[in-house]
């Protein structure tokens, strides 16, 4: 990952916008932003994070690579799409935010311990293991991410929800033994590997 980062720095030098355009989903639309502020003002999470989409887009153009790729703001996006439907320039803001999060994550620059990022990683690892999500394990891993004590506390807090899910047959306690996978697990893993290969190539992660 660090090599990918060094390569990227080497390749794009001071032109972070070019780097984003080449490697980030919908990155070519960043330059269309006219800095009107509607997205920043429309985002329900706006007051709670450091960098609104408006700010991130300006920082990209200003070449603030470390600040952007180290920001935790992109991970705060809940995909409500409020910004996107209101942007007067129709920037696919939500997609760009997620694209940036993904790029920062893959370069190893995303902030450590960012909860959304951790959960997404957990979810991904869980899902690709068997081709389907093992909800019990996902939940447990998530609760116990901060150690045993806090895990028990959190799990107890969610007890009634868990029980409800169990009664509705949405949570199977037997999944603790690994759960069942998709039919052709090998094929599934091959698909994921291929997809990763293509993505790496496209986003410049292959040497």
């Amino acid at each position, binding site marked *: 990952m660090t090599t990918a980062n060094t390569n990227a720095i080497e390749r794009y030098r001071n032109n972070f916008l070019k780097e984003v355009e080449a490697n980030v989903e919908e990155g070519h639309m960043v330059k269309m932003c*006219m*800095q*009107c*502020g*509607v997205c*920043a*003002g*429309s985002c329900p999470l*706006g*007051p709670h994070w450091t960098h*609104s989409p*408006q*700010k991130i887009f300006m920082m990209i153009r200003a070449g603030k690579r470390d600040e952007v790729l180290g920001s935790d703001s992109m991970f705060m996006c809940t995909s409500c799409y409020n910004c996107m*439907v*209101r*942007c*007067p*320039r*129709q920037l696919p803001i939500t997609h760009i935010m997620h694209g940036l999060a993904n790029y920062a994550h893959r370069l190893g620059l995303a902030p450590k311990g960012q909860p959304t990022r951790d959960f997404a990683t957990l979810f991904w690892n869980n899902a690709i293991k068997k081709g389907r999500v093992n909800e019990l394990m996902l939940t447990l891993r998530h609760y116990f991410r901060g150690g045993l004590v806090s895990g028990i506390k959190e799990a107890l807090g969610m007890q009634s929800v868990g029980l409800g899910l169990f009664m509705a047959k949405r949570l199977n306690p037997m999944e603790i033994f690994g759960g069942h996978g998709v039919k052709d697990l090998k094929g599934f893993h091959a698909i994921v590997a291929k997809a990763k290969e293509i993505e790496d190539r496209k986003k410049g992660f292959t040497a």
Partner: protein
Amino acid sequence: MTASIATNQTILVVGGGISGMTAALEAAECGKQVILVEKTPVLGGRTARLYRYFPKMCHPTCGLEINLRRIKQNRNIRLMTMTEVTAVSGSRGNYSVTLKVAPRFVNENCTACGKCAEAVTAEVSNPWNYGLDKMKAAYLPHNMAYPQRYVIDPSIVGTPEGEKAKAACPVGAVDLDMKEETVTLSVGAVIYATGWRPYDAAKIQPYGYGRFANVITSLEFERLADPQGPTGGKILRPGDGKEAKNIAFIQCAGSRDENHLRHCSRICCMASLKQTQYVREAFGDQGKSTIYYIDIRAIDRFEDFYQMVQKDATVSFVKSKVAKIVENAENGNPVLHGVDTEGYHRYATEHDLVVLAVGMEPEITGVKLPDDVILDSSNFIEGSKDGGMFGAGAASSPLDVNRSVQSATAASLHAIQVIRKTASTEAV
């Protein structure tokens, strides 16, 4: 009647705003026959409904009066009010146009004495003031109206109210039996000077126009400032009739927005800059105007005007497109939410009144035009494939009065060329 004198040597001008009047006059004063068709009962268009107009801050009635005098004196112009074009066929030099003439229910004998209005009690919404107040159902659209002839609203025709108006008229001018008429004319060239209409502000959902009483449009604000308007020129907000001293102007309301109008309406920055001076005129140093903008587009020589307003201590500027408005339920004040671009500060600012600088959309948007007419992506008229029909003024582009007049003069010249060509081929 008018129909019989029109030939393919005649120029049809559709729309009697400043552009239509100019186009008609330029051609008529060159000796051409012109038919000027206007949808409403009066000439003047949108300009006549402005309180003052930039850059000189004079009253638009002054310029209107000069043009009206020229029209009255000119025998080459046939004016048809309350008339709309419903169809155009044929081609350059030889068009057949169908006009629909709505009944005014008052004939040429009217002396504008006003007795009919005194007699009736029924009221209708007043379009002159953008529906901010009501007027009698027998009315003169405004003091400067030309023609100076009353109109009976169709809603009272066939009712006792209509009969009251008729009985009150000392000269027998009220004719309740008038019917809608259809007229077909042949003309050689057509100028569309159909102007613009404000973008429907209710479509800009986060701003709450229509939901919040103290969010109005820039057009309504013109009427509030005008002594002939619904408040007699006092800036009173619609919600509770209180004086509105702390006013927010929101720029690009519906313009420069892919979800609304794509184009920059070009006049609304200047309109808001102008309107801050109405606030100053009304309240002196007690007034406060705040302009929320993406960027100020005071086109070419209007930069001076912008600089003049910038020096005014009662006016401040916030570089930000407002994200949304909520209403303070206690006092009815609109609260503006957004983030400014100069420092990315989040704000929630309360004002007495919000004026939305709404965009200009072509009035003919949605109207069926002849196939030959070429429109741009915002429905402004670029011209026609056969070269015999032209757009003028705000129908062709979002233009201020000065540029509308230039554009109308150009369209008139083009139309004259078409007529001359037709004449010379016929002579051969």
